[in-house]
């Protein structure tokens, strides 16, 4: 029995798979080493670490949205709402009773909530679960809706959450928000959770459930006629997405250090949608790459907002100029690369090797051609 299993694994271990595994291990080891030294402050300063944390967190958020929008083919725009739930739950559970006492100066906090203090990992986990519960509750009425209606309903949900949080003075501290969240999230946290989410989604998409999600995306009528319950599977995808978005929200709370309801306006969902579309609907690696590119570029392109000169002509300082650039970029992608940067495909070492090898092989060909003549 055991021997049979071994031959099964061995049979699947082709040379190419062996090479890919080696390369993957090497890449992971390199990232771990890098992270280790970065944490000691050898390579990156605090500012860069913060940007990398943000990049990884946005990758997590992009993946959560891609699960629903890219893999299951639903059009949901509720990400900001789930993030708000995640951020607030994490913060409320994690802050010390004293810190909370000092923050709630307008009206005291609910004594029960003020007394709670949990370790960060547990706060984050509970935040994910509460966010998943929120997804379940709004999924109930909303997931029966089709297409654009779902987008409008989920957008509405995220605004309702925001308004609720603004007015639940004794729970969320209202419009003032919560401050002084300890910066426990380091590169291990953000990259670690990102790695877990990547592995989770990639594995999920190879299971029967993942195939069912993709079947719903491809053709709802056919999927339902093959025995796939649309509601049940959409709900699974939606709840998992809510959980992951809740984690992302919790990470952001600790990275930024303070939260208030205005941070979670629907424009945030749009930012994440941009990552998903740019990276390619239904591509895990595309989402991760796009999250890093966009988040980093947003920082580096800050100068756009401060005005700049184009030779003779000087562009005045316009707040939000960056977003204009990104929106134009998004439009170009939608017009010319409907599949996003990844073309809807996943990263593979073979593709990378082929890509890097192209110029070399072209030279080789030219040489060979030269010899012949």
């Amino acid at each position, binding site marked *: 029995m055991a021997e049979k299993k071994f031959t099964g694994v061995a049979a699947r271990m082709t040379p190419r798979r062996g090479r890919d595994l080696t390369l993957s291990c090497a890449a992971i080891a390199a990232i771990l080493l890098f992270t280790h030294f970065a944490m000691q402050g050898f390579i990156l300063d605090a500012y860069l670490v913060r940007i990398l944390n943000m990049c990884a967190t946005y990758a997590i958020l992009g993946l959560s949205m891609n699960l629903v929008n890219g893999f299951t083919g639903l059009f949901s725009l509720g990400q900001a709402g789930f993030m708000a739930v995640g951020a607030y739950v994490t913060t409320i559970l994690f802050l010390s009773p004293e810190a909370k006492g000092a923050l709630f100066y307008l009206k005291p906090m609910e004594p029960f909530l003020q007394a709670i203090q949990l370790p960060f990992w547990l706060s984050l986990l509970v935040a994910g679960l509460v966010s998943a519960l929120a997804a379940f509750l709004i999924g109930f009425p909303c997931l029966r809706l089709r297409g654009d209606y779902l987008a409008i309903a989920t957008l509405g949900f995220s605004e309702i959450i925001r308004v609720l949080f603004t007015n639940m003075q004794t729970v969320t501290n209202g419009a003032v928000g919560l401050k002084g969240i300890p910066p426990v999230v380091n590169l291990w946290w953000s990259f670690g959770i990102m790695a877990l989410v990547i592995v989770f989604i990639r*594995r*999920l998409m190879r299971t029967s459930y993942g*195939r069912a999600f993709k079947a719903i*995306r491809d*053709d709802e009528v056919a999927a*339902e006629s*093959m025995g796939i319950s649309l509601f049940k599977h959409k709900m699974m995808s939606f709840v998992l997405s809510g959980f992951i978005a809740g984690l992302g929200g919790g990470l952001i709370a600790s990275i930024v250090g303070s939260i208030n309801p205005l941070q979670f306006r629907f424009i945030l969902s749009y930012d994440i949608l941009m990552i998903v579309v740019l990276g390619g609907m239904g591509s895990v690696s595309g989402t991760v790459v796009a999250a890093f590119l966009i988040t980093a570029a947003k920082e580096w392109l800050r100068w756009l907002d401060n005005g700049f000169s184009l030779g003779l002509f000087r562009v005045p300082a316009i707040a939000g100029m960056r977003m204009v650039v990104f929106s134009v970029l998004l439009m170009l992608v939608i017009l010319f690369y409907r599949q996003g940067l990844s073309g809807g495909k996943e990263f593979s070492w073979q593709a990378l090797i082929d890509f890097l090898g192209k110029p070399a092989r072209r030279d080789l060909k030219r040489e060979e051609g030269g010899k012949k003549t």
Partner: protein
Amino acid sequence: MSILRCENLVMRFGGVTAVDDFSPHVDPGEIVAVIGPNGAGKTTAFNMITGVYKPASGRVFLEQDGQVTMRDITGMRPDRVAALGIARTFQNIRLFKSQTVLENVLIACHVRVRSGLFGAEISWPRYYLEERAMRERAMALLERVGLQDAAGEMATSLPYGKQRRLEIARALATQPKLLLLDEPAAGMNPKETEDLTRFVYDLRGQMNLAVLMIEHHMQIVMDISDRIYVLDYGRTIAQGTAAAVQANPAVIEAYLGVEEA
């Protein structure tokens, strides 16, 4: 006892009565055909049986395993109907576009998966075995329809005739007791049509399956169906054996006449 029994099915779209008082039944091991001109209401009848449409009136009953009484499945959701044992193909092929040939069949196996999502995620032994059995069953079905060599190709890259066969394999993967085929030979060449006829004929023998099919190719219908229903403008104008239907003057006028013209 019948596998499927419909009583007085009626479907209206606005002012149009697409199906009017249709009461077909299918007995175990039977191949039953539904014929009629375009727009006669054949596909609409299939959609009522499979739960895609809720009939305006009338009932649909399905045999239940090990019981004498039949189950009322009128207006049940399509996925429930599929789980209970009715599988179908579509007149205008509806394969999963972004999936391979094998994956299309695997998706139809999903309805019989017992493991939960997290069991599947961590490849829990029960799921591991289910997935392996599922792949074996899917490959066996692909072999039956002669698509085993195309397993890894994208479903939509197949030529038309093969896509139709893939749809049948996919339907069979749900492990049905009744198979509904909506114009399975549409767009096939004569050779493919003949293969299909034999294939469907063999199916019911080997898989203990009953078949209800809509078909325009009179050759197939006359060759393999035990009984025929003829629809015209939603009404049933004739029913019975191939010979009886062929001799029926109303049929000749409404349908066969059109064919000859």
